[in-house]
């Protein structure tokens, strides 16, 4: 057991180092950070002095190890754009992203399961056909288009909901939440819908397929034969067995919701880490980009690690020492 966890931890560290390396290589091609840090009047000699000060003239390998060394201490330097410590910037933006991600994940889960079950139980009804058609639209429309469309309808035309920002926030000291004010909650609605649509359709189709599968199994027929009520069969037996894979997928999707938030956050000027990343890319704010990529990698690595460890408890076949992991 301990050996398995240690092995997985070592693998995770290797993955993180790899991400750091790839990120570092990519940054050599995103442009010149100095160009966006100085005005056009700045002499080229002065730009050179700045490059030296920032260590941009050192050999790449030296820069890489300096970056790794600092990253291990949670030190990502100062943002070129905002001149504030990067770790502080990311921490201050994280609550917004996490609240948005959880709101979207909850929406996706609740509606996805409900609609999935419905379309599985009434596959012939007109409503189900409509839902299935709409879900195709939800999957194929780009996020920014959905966002702009919602803004146009609910903010510009109807004037019901704010088109940008997070509304008023309450500072709890270690967390800034928008969930405690009316304007904060109102501001959350449109971005949460926008971000959840893709996941919602995914979960819905998954639930529907699983449910149809389960409803065809022997034990469901047997339950019918025993004269159990339709309701007990559908919700007691079928749904319970349907939800096992759904929970796994949802856990894994949470990582991508946080990563996918970039577009939604940009459209709604949502002050999270995603919009911070996009702004940083535009001006080649390397310290912020590096920290963000490392952070996203960490989220995925952690989620995978937790899922693996849970499986380890669930699936006895994994406990044979020497057996291949992750089959």
């Amino acid at each position, binding site marked *: 057991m301990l050996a398995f966890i240690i092995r997985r931890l070592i693998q995770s560290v290797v993955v993180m180092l790899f991400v750091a390396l790839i990120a570092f290589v990519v940054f050599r091609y995103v442009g010149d950070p100095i160009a966006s840090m100085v005005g056009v009047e700045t002499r080229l000699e002065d730009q050179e*002095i700045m490059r030296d000060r920032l260590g941009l003239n050192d050999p790449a390998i030296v820069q890489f190890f300096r970056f790794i060394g600092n990253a291990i201490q949670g030190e990502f330097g100062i943002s070129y754009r905002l001149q504030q410590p990067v770790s502080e910037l990311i921490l201050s933006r994280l609550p917004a992203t996490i609240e948005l991600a959880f709101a979207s994940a909850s929406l996706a889960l609740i509606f996805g399961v409900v609609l999935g079950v419905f379309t599985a139980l009434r596959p012939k009804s007109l409503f189900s056909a409509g839902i299935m058609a709409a879900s195709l639209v939800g999957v194929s429309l780009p996020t920014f288009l959905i966002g702009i469309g919602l803004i146009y309808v609910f903010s510009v035309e109807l004037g019901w909901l704010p088109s940008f920002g997070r509304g008023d926030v309450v500072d709890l000291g270690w967390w800034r939440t928008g969930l405690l004010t009316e304007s904060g909650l109102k501001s959350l609605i449109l971005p949460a819908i926008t971000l959840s649509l893709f996941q919602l359709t995914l979960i819905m189709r998954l639930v529907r397929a699983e449910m149809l599968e389960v409803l065809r199994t022997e034990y469901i027929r047997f339950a019918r034969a025993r004269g159990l009520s339709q309701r007990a069969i559908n919700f007691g037996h079928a749904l319970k067995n349907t939800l096992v894979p759904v929970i796994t997928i949802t856990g894994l999707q949470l990582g991508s919701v946080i990563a996918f938030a970039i577009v939604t956050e940009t459209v709604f000027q949502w002050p999270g880490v995603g919009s911070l990343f996009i702004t940083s890319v535009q001006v080649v704010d390397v310290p912020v980009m590096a920290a963000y990529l490392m952070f996203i990698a960490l989220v995925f690595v952690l989620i995978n690690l937790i899922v693996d460890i849970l499986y380890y408890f669930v699936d006895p076949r994994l406990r044979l020492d020497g057996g291949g992991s992750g089959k």
Partner: protein
Amino acid sequence: MTTTFRRLGAALLASTLIVSAASAETIRWARASDALTLDPHSQNQGPTHNFAHHIYETLVDRDVEGNLQARLATSWEIKADDPTTWVFTLREGVTFHDGAAFTAEDVVFSLDRARSEKSNMRQLHVDVAEVIAVDDYTVEVKMNGPAPLYPNNLTNTFIMDKTWAETNDVVEVQDYAAGEDNYAVRNTNGTGPYILQSREVDVRSVLSINENHWAEQKPAVTEIIYLPIADAATRVAALLSGEVDIVQDVPVQDIERLSSTDGIKVETGPENRVIYFGYKFGDAPLASSNITDRNPFNDPRVREAMELAVDRDAIKAVVMRGQSIPTGVANPPFVNGWTEELDAYPAPDIERAQALLAEAGYPDGFTVTLDTPNNRYVNDEAISQAVVSMLGRIGINVTLASRPVAQHSPLVTNNQTDFYLLGWGVPTFDSAYVFNDLVHSKEGSYGAYNGGLYSNPELDAMIESLGTETDLEKRNATIAEIWQVVKQDRVLLPIHNQVLAYAMKDRITLPVHPENQPLMTSVTFAE
């Protein structure tokens, strides 16, 4: 940290309570990006200066016509017996937001800080030898030589309180390489018309009126809520839905729709920024061309053919939706040295252009790559696309390479481009600024953006003389002469001057500022 709490509290209170008298007017002002920092000398960037102008003040600044006007200095002149020294007389009775008196020592401290090694403003003060406080309200700035235009360089150099800076340990400008940030990045103490109440980077900043400001005319706007909204469509939607009052960076394609919307009006005006194309000079063959034995751009007939092929009016009508001012000179109309004759441009003439190309020895044209930024100027990439098809009509086959500005601008400064688009604003409002960077041979501090490596020693000598010539008539004659050569020689291929558009609710009027630095003190309300 505690100040953040206090500020947040204040912001929350301000948003729920009615602040003062019935005449209180709040403006919600949105633009594409936030100020980068509050440290007044650390970044030389438009939006950052624009925001700072509300909190801090400069010795002199520009009105909406582009003229210098007095701000913290009431007058300035060259010392009678010493052409290398500027004397500034300071405004009396001015206080900083914390109550400290504004005196000459603050000006000396601020100018020294602005020209210190880590300051991004230092280039504008490179000729300063020494700054001296003569008495409490007189400052002398000694230059290395005669510098007749030095006050032009002061319009974005803000004055801080020396004591405040020392108390909070911000005598030095923020250093990127340091491990921590500087107090001045997040806190302010200026003499300006508004006081910072709260700031959340990239989200919202709140400013309230400074009741003790020296100006006799109190501004109509008593509170400013500054809201950066990066996405253009969202920014416009926020105005349409009534969530903001003024939008500063309006995309040209939305101007018409906004103008025809009830309750919204659009103010437009020329910006101090010209968009032009540059090309590689010299005999060496171009890196991206099929002509491998010589450089087609080096032939004046080819440059003339290109100018005749480009239809500036079509670019204005189609690409810019009417929102540009076509020009024949790479110099915005506000700038000293601009004339109607220079501004004139030839009508497109495809036949003549083809004849010129054939004459130059390229009857079948040639190929070349055009480098363009795609996120810096208004419709920059679309302008380049239009020019590609226009040049195609005379047989010059252009491949377009489009990049974000962070990758584009090093190509120009490192001379790695054969043909490029660039924009140029002239903060000093004088032609010398254009010549120094775009026309002078690339050497030392000159010609940083002369990516085509044009080099004309005679012009270089004339350009250098502008820096120290104190006889303004003689100086202007030299400027005219230089422009004559630059236009004849077609050193650059100018296209148009950009137009700025601000959209606002129709009871508000905010005049367009040529440097895109509008002050909310200039807002008026219709009754």
